[in-house]
């Protein structure tokens, strides 16, 4: 087991418009990409962000050694309930997640 952030190059999250969030896991090498792509379950990512698994779009991009997740923002950008206007802080949830 390891924290995802300790084995990959970078985890980045950002708004994809006001209603969607996209999270990119830059693995940095083919080996780490293979490990992360295999061990990172979409269901766990959905639970981490409190969204339905069916709403999570996942892209395993071997050419870039990137695993990408896009899903409706946990809160719509800029509403009274929103805490993170640019959506960049949500990356830490994945960064600090333990994976096998």
């Amino acid at each position, binding site marked *: 087991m390891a924290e995802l952030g300790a084995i990959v190059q970078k985890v980045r999250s950002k708004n*994809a418009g006001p*209603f969607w969030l*996209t999270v990119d896991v830059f693995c940095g090498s083919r080996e780490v990409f293979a490990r992360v792509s295999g061990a990172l379950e979409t269901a766990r990512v959905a639970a981490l962000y409190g969204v339905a698994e069916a709403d999570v779009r996942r892209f395993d991009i071997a050419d870039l050694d990137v695993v*990408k997740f896009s899903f409706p923002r946990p809160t719509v*950008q800029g509403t009274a309930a929103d*805490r993170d*206007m640019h959506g960049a802080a*949500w990356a830490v949830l994945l960064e*600090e997640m333990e994976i096998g």
Partner: protein
Amino acid sequence: MVRVLIPTGALGLAYDRAALARGVANRPDIIAVDGGSTDSGPSYLGRGVSKYSRATTKAEWRDLMLARAEAGVPLVIGTAGTCGADSAVDWLFEITRELAEELGQKVKVARLYSGQSPDTIAAAMRAGRVTPLSGAPLADEDLVRSCTNIVALAGVEQIRAALDTGADIVIAGRTTDTAIIAALPIARNCDAGGAWHGAKVGECGALATTNPASGVIQIDFDERGFTLEPLGATARATPYTVSAHMLYENTDPYILHEPGGHLDVAASRYIALDDRRVRVEGSVWVPGRYTVKLEGARVAGYQVVSLTLLRDRRYVANARAWAEDIARRCREVAVDRTGLAEAEFTIEMRLVGQDATLGPLETGRTVPVEVGVLAIVTAPTEAQAVEIGKILNPYLLHHALTEDEPMPTFAFPFSPAEMARGAGYEFCLHHVMALDDPMAAFRLQVSEVGHG
């Protein structure tokens, strides 16, 4: 071949002046710069204002107007004034007029307005021409009429119409980030897939290079694709930095929707020409129905916030219970004294140092040395929000965890303790509108300013 010079990812973000000078010396066909996005939140569109300082905007726009005069080519800005509302276009036009006078330039300026009247959008809705995108909020005619600003995102057709007026400067309201870069290459019959893809890679300036802060890049478009060259002295573009940029702020790394179709980069080939330039070919433009995306913002209540600092260990350890007890008591008092029903206002306590960033999603658990209690009141009117903020005040200052202890006093960093934030806005459209004529929802106004 069409050479597009892109000075920065957004006017107001700063850029490398030496790199801009190199770009001008390379004889571009057009200078294109982005002026905004939704990324800073709904308040800018709601109010129709820029998020950047007027002085900074004027200083950077001055440089670009001088670069335009030297290069003798059009200068185009998209999504002027952060939000691209008509008032933001006029704001930048006024700055342009001042600069033309100060610089002794005589320039023809085309303003492209993207603002939409609520009545027009409501009628389009009735006619079935407005369709929600995935994740869109429910929207009806009443909601549309409650918007303080609605804009439609222009594509290359509207930018081309503005360029066809012979304007030296085009100040466009809301456009897609890519349209200002792709417009001239597409008008001159460069490969459409390459034009849109290059525009997407270039829309953030040097973000798709190894030195994002350098800002300035140039892209050469032709009939088979595009070549990206960063102009910062140490910036390099690599097949990785260029191909990875399709990930950025994009839900799908292969597809980008634009007015009149979509870009598909699944089969794109990225070739390093040397250690700093990248060539891209094989991107595909797939024509579709002509639609433009709509954005709208409306007032969602008025807010008052305050910050209280807890440093006492016992209160830090029990901060959540303390804050929620205050919120519960103050809700009751507010209902009693303001006449508002409990459902009409909210009092939210965010604990800075504990979970203010992630709220219920927070997974970290450590006891901090101090906690900032950010109290957020949202109410239908400013006066009501201010009243409730003041009802909170004595509790935040003195509320004790238990009844049988000396009265505590907590740290307020400010006097007055409450800060009125004015209106809070929310985005309420994530829809597309079908158009028979791309210009049907946009307006052009051409004027000459300055003297030379």
